[in-house]
């Protein structure tokens, strides 16, 4: 076993991990709220979606900050970590566009907002998956 080579550095910092994993429930919540709005026309769901996206963006933004710091470390400038970084960047950008679409009044956000919310949720899942795979496996070369 390579236990001896496994260092604390090579796993995601707990804060980084919490922020990253938090994007899924927030963006998923937004998607479900969008679904509820489109099936009930109850405006409150669209308001929930807007705040959940804003929350998701705060989490994703801070995660991006952690990842940028990570880029300065030589062992992370290659392979899966780069894939993770660009997925995360895409998540923030598409998430921000989605926030702007959700700023449209009432049904003006539909159907684009719902479609974008689904894409953002899938991106959040993919980013989290890759993020955890790239680092938490520690000493694996």
């Amino acid at each position, binding site marked *: 076993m390579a236990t001896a080579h496994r260092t604390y550095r090579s796993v995601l910092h707990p804060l980084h991990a919490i922020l990253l994993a938090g994007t899924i429930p927030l963006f998923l919540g937004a998607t479900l709220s969008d679904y509820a709005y489109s099936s009930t026309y109850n405006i409150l769901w669209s308001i929930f979606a807007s*705040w959940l996206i*804003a929350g998701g963006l705060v989490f994703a933004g801070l995660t991006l900050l952690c990842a940028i710091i990570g880029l300065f470390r030589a062992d992370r400038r290659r392979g899966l970590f780069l894939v993770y970084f660009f997925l995360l960047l895409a998540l923030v950008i598409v998430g921000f566009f989605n926030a702007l679409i959700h700023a449209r*009044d009432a049904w*003006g956000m539909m159907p684009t907002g719902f479609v974008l919310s689904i894409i953002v949720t899938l991106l959040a899942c993919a980013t989290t998956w890759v993020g955890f795979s790239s680092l938490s496996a520690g000493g694996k070369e």
Partner: protein
Amino acid sequence: MKISIILFVTTAALVLSACGNSVPDSEQQYGPDPTLPEPQRGLLPGMTIPEPAEWGDQLPTVPDNYTITAIATNLKVPRQTLVLPNGDILVAEGSGGNAPLSKPKGVIAGYLKSQGTTSVKSGDRLTLLRDSDGDGSYEEQTVFAKNLNAPYGLALIDNNLYVANQDALVRFDYEEGRTQASGPPEEVTKLPSEINHHWTKALTASADGRFLYVGIGSNSNITERGMAAEVSRAEVWQINAETGAHKPYATGLRNPTALTIQPETDQLWVVVNERDELGPNLVPDYLTAVREGGFYGWPYSYWGQNVDPRVRPQNPEKVKSAIVPDYSLSSHVAPLGLDFSIPEMGDKFAEGVFIGEHGSWNRANPVGYKVVFIPFSEGRPSGQPIDFVTGFLSAEEKTRGRPVGVTVDPSGALIVADDVSNTVWRVTPKENQ
């Protein structure tokens, strides 16, 4: 969170300024049959909120042979005015609205909009201006009533002075010559005031003095606070002056900001602020005679049968019944003042209405920011608007003032309230001086 807001605002400002150069100037949309482009909405709505600036030693521009003077300054957000039978002028001062934050957008919009308004706090009072010697300078200024709640509309029926607060219609006893109310007002009826997205309550009295008409704006731009918030909103109420009983007189008027009665015909007229975020040239604000029982489209449709896709569920029945307004004032000019002229205002301005245009925020190139005159003939609007007071927007696109209420003084003058420079202006033909 703070950083993300700053980022948001910076990005918004960048994109906005980029839009500013690409949107062409509006086609003129005046008259009974305006051009209506296809609705459009980019990632951000086009917005330009001119920054306030001082008048210094300059004045608003008026036509040749007219003069303009500031008859009261340093007021606390003057909105509407009323000329009393003895020539005294009452000014309603205040700011209302208590809409809670609804979406993240509100954080940014609230910040941006605060940059374009006065920092003076709501006066919540009525100020009386008096020119005892008739020389055109109003040397006496007294507080007629205070502790009101964002007063806006004013009307006098005999010895009853009615004031439309943002939450109630109230009545003061009035006798000619009074400079101060004799006591606190009596409530005639409550007015819808929950949320109060559009808080201004416009007011006018019917010609026979039996009824009062109150304009109640919608609780949203386009139903984004839900339909439950729109009960008894976007309506003009007819209120029995004696009993306070009310009924909706006309509906579907998004934000009826000024009401007045046409002399001779006794017909009620209104100016209405229409919806935003459908592009720089939609939807035209308008002037229209109010038909009793009429439905004017909001929220389901605009300018007659043009369906607004942002409203769900839709209502084709209501859309079918929507009345096309009489006269487009063009989009986003924000009319807030309306009064019929009299021959004493000079030949060119003898027959028609004056309209105070507060000025746009919801388009890249600002429009409005002036007082216009719409000529009438045979009791109907009959031609292009004529600029009457301009110069509120400086060459550097800063706002030195924004016109609100306009009132024709029977002695031959136009009184204009300005809620950015907190001034009341008086425009007179030189021969009336």
